[in-house]
């Protein structure tokens, strides 16, 4: 027990007590506490275990720089890896330490620390290589890593991201940020101010200062009031985590009630970075013991939460800032000894003991710090050691904006160098630590920080000097990296994991660089620093997902007649982004689909084909344009007629197939596959604008404007006649006609994807329901059946009609599908033509063929046609489509096969999931090869 609650602490309400649990232990707290302040107040020192060696660890800091104090929030609102220094203490919160098995206090992995000299940097990489790292991986991962995900938890609730613009975004609401925000707002600019803390004020919340006669934090509160009155948006618990291209800053705003932090994407004309600076540790042996903390954090806990972190406190500093901490702890009755490592004449001037020029050689203690031994050999008993090795400005956002850092000897840190357009760095983030300089002319009374003594880890020092508490990196690991010639900072980082995970260079980076500089005989700026990357603090993926989950993850497109299909018992599936009926009825997939496919061939089938592409191409050059776009010549098509054709990629592969309808001389409809409409519309636009006179041909996608209802089967003409569309006797296959339905025009094309006589009726989408119902009503006399997508797939497969992307892949040419005419005879230029003549393209050709099962069972779709060459199985093609045909009463299949057209009748071997089956190569069309059904 070393921490205790004093009578001070302005942020906590002594009349409101609450409690939470940590590793099953009940922790008392007050309203206003963070989890960290409450744990420290009740004397809890060990709050985590080291990542690698499982040494006991206590809190180092009081904010987002905290490397050790990380825990999982348990329960329904489970959140892994929460920094306890930022987490408000709330009633009933349940926390579980990380890396502790079972708890941080009692960790059975702690034995690992005794083997530490056998587990240097990269130990796991080097040791567990043979025969296969994956054999060791699960065990090693179980031992390492940070928090544990709770599979039963429901995860974060959704938070909608916000896009915002402003004139000025101010990052950090410390004294510099508050003053800058006020100046900008007073000048009439639209300002957004954000801060990661629960309250604005930054260092004024804990460091003693007077501004214009006011207490520092009262001044901060007054400025916030002024800002709100000026219309400034002030965001608390909001971290600016990343700076992206073209002035974009990403913010994450913590939410209550288990919702994910809300993402703000802010584009500001100017961003002012006032993110402050983070205190560094000092290099002495065992500087990771619980009880060794940042001096600034010690002051923070005391003045804000009334928590004194110790009773016998040694404070070691390389700068003037730690005197505030020493004074404050002395005033509440702690026994303070301050080691001013700069030397000088401070000894005897203070009410506490000051020793100058004597660094700590080692901290002593087993589970927590008990004493320190100085370089002079003197031993000082202490339950707490507070250290300040100087401050590292938080320049992350400047660096992410491609800003170039420069080294400053005075503050021993990298500072922003040349200005970056649209970004200004001020205050401690720019290396200005003294309040009087941050707020000039404002009557500031505050202690001076002064310069920082350079005191960095030295090579071959005794004991284990920790540089990165979160990743368990010591000075010896950096020396090992140097011996193995991994001396560049980026190699050093990856080899030792220095500065990875949460830390991102907040506390660990600079001591590691400084040691490497010393080892290589270079200066720190010559050694350089690693690239800062977002995020500054971890952001859950749920925040980036925002509302894109469940139905909104990848929204499906819906048919105008969906409700009607549901009432008719349709089961829906997604096809190419559209939610469509797969089959109707409750008799099970196989039975219903077979029933539909059989009935459609015998009488008439009704199919909702509304997603079918309907892209209009209009203008005097439309025919010329389509000649270029299609593999087939299209300008010879007569108005009122339809033609089937292919569109190729420039690489010569089939991109889409479909029917082109010539409505008028200068107006066509590209009836492309329903899943390819967007791709086709883009392709048409690109070529139109690239190679044609844009005033003479235009593209207009009307797909969603019309519903398309397909009537197919031998009785389809009779049904349409019964509905009132005339006799249609004169309408040949691949021709266009028009009818009327309740005052609306109906475009009727006689095209077929089933091989039977078929008609496609296109009508305004909002009037389709009446027509569909009329077709269903009149259809009863013809035994009409509602056809889902699955049955349609069988009908087209019986005929050998292809689905592009299923029966073709990225190298299938039109000739492979049996369409050779244009390749051999066409004169004009068309998309992909030249590629069809490349020898390399021809060399890898496969033909689409039919494959007959030699058993009553359908062939496995996706199975490879194999041949054994020199003892090894080689693929010669694969099955693209396979069904049981209710109209042929046998299985049918298609596949792509090398040299397939020359192998008709041959028996080939298929290989699928460890089994072989035989099949006979056959023509693709299994039913009605003469095409008589079209006119039946």
């Amino acid at each position, binding site marked *: 027990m070393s921490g205790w609650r004093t009578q001070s602490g302005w942020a906590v309400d002594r009349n409101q007590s609450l409690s939470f649990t940590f590793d099953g232990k009940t922790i008392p707290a007050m309203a206003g506490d963070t989890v960290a302040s409450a744990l420290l107040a009740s004397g809890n020192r060990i709050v985590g275990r080291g990542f690698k060696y499982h040494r006991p660890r206590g809190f180092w800091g009081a904010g987002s720089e905290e490397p050790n104090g990380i825990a999982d929030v348990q329960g329904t609102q489970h959140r892994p890896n929460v920094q306890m220094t930022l987490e408000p203490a709330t009633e009933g919160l349940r926390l579980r330490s990380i890396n502790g098995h079972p708890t941080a206090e009692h960790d059975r992995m702690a034995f690992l620390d005794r083997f530490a000299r056998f587990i240097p940097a990269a130990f796991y990489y080097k040791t567990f290589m043979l025969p296969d790292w994956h054999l060791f991986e699960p065990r090693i991962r179980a031992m390492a890593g940070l928090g544990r995900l709770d599979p039963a938890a429901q995860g974060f609730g959704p938070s909608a991201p916000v896009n915002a613009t402003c004139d000025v975004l101010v990052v950090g609401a410390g004294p510099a940020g508050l003053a800058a925000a006020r100046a900008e707002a007073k000048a009439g600019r639209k300002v957004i101010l954000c801060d990661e803390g629960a309250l604005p004020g930054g260092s004024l919340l804990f460091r003693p200062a007077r501004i214009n006669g006011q207490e520092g934090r009262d001044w901060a509160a007054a400025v916030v009031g002024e800002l709100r009155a000026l219309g400034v948006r002030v965001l608390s618990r909001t971290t600016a985590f990343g700076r992206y*291209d073209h002035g974009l800053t990403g913010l994450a705003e913590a939410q209550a009630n288990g919702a994910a932090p809300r993402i703000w994407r802010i584009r500001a004309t100017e961003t002012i970075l006032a993110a402050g600076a983070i205190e560094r540790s000092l290099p002495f042996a065992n500087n990771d013991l619980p009880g060794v903390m940042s001096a600034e954090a010690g002051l923070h806990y005391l003045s804000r939460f009334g928590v004194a972190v110790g009773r016998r406190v040694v404070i070691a500093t390389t700068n003037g800032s730690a005197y505030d901490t020493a004074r404050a702890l002395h005033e509440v009755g702690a026994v303070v000894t301050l080691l001013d490592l700069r030397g000088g004449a401070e000894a005897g001037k203070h009410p506490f003991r000051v020793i100058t020029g004597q660094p700590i050689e080692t901290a002593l203690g087993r589970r927590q710090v008990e004493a320190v031994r100085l370089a002079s050999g003197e031993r000082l008993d202490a339950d707490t050691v507070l250290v300040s090795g100087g401050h590292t400005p938080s320049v992350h956002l400047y660096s992410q904006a491609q800003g170039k850092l420069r080294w400053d000897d005075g503050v021993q840190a990298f500072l922003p160098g040349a200005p970056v357009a649209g970004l200004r760095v001020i205050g401690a983030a720019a290396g200005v630590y003294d309040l009087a300089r941050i707020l000039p002319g404002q009557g500031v009374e505050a202690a001076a920080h002064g310069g920082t003594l350079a005191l960095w880890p030295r090579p071959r020092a005794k004991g284990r000097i920790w540089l990165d508490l979160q990743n368990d990196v010591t000075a010896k690991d950096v020396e090992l990296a140097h011996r193995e010639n991994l001396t560049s900072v980026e190699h050093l980082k990856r080899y030792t994991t220095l500065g990875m995970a949460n830390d991102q260079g907040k506390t660990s980076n600079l001591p590691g660089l400084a040691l490497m500089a010393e080892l290589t005989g270079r200066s720190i700026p010559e050694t350089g620093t690693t690239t800062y990357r977002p995020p500054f603090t971890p952001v859950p993926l749920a925040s980036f997902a925002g509302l894109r989950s469940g139905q909104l993850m990848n929204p499906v497109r819906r048919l105008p007649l969906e409700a009607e299909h549901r009432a008719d018992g349709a089961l829906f599936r997604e096809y190419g982004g559209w939610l469509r009926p797969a089959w109707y009825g409750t008799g099970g997939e196989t039975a219903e689909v077979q029933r539909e496919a059989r009935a459609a061939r015998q009488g008439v089938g009704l199919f909702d084909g509304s997603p079918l592409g309907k892209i209009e191409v209009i203008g005097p050059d439309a025919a010329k344009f389509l000649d270029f776009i299609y593999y087939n010549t299209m300008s010879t098509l007569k108005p009122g007629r339809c033609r089937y054709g292919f569109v190729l990629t420039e690489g010569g592969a089939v991109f889409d197939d479909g029917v082109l309808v010539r409505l008028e001389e200068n107006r066509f409809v590209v009836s492309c596959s329903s899943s390819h409409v967007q791709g086709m*519309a*883009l392709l048409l636009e690109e070529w139109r604008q*690239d190679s044609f006179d844009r005033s003479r041909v235009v593209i207009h996608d009307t797909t969603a404007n019309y519903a398309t209802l397909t009537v197919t089967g031998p009785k389809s003409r009779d049904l349409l006649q019964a509905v009132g569309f005339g006799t249609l006797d004169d309408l040949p296959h691949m021709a266009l006609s028009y009818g009327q339905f309740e005052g609306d025009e109906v475009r009727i094309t006689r095209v077929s994807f089933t091989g039977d006589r078929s008609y496609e009726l296109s009508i305004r989408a909002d009037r389709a329901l009446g027509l569909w119902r009329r077709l269903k009503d009149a259809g009863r006399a013809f035994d009409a059946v509602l056809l889902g997508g699955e049955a349609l797939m069988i009908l087209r497969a019986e005929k050998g009609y292809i689905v592009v992307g299923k029966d073709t892949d990225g190298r299938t040419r039109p000739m492979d599908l049996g369409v050779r005419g244009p390749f051999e005879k066409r004169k004009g*230029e068309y998309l992909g033509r030249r590629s069809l003549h*490349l020898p390399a393209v021809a060399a890898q050709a496969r033909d689409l063929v039919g494959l007959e099962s030699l058993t009553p069972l359908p062939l496995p779709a996706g199975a490879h046609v194999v041949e054994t060459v020199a003892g090894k199985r080689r693929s010669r093609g694969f099955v693209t489509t396979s069904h049981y045909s209710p109209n042929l009463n046998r299985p049918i299949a298609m596949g792509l096969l090398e040299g397939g057209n020359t192998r008709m009748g041959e028996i080939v071997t298929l290989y699928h999931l460890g089994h072989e089956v035989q099949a006979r190569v056959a023509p693709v069309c299994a039913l009605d090869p003469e095409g008589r059904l079209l006119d039946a």
Partner: protein
Amino acid sequence: MQLFPCPFCGPRPETEFHFGGDAGNTRPDAAASDSDWTNYLFFKHNRKGPTREIWMHLTCREVFLMARDTVSHEVSATEALGGEA
């Protein structure tokens, strides 16, 4: 996320755009040799620094020319193709 200025719609987030290729990668005529044709199809300059590219703004479907720097990500100019149609 970058902001690209569509010559017709003004600045919009990069996710609204579709890359069309290097500017000046002219389609060879029908008599092109195999190597000229495959260069047109497959050879990308992947320039470091200033570059001129063709992009489409998917929202308005207009194709335009964009001069930008692949290192600094600065967009120096965008230009409608063939004037304002």
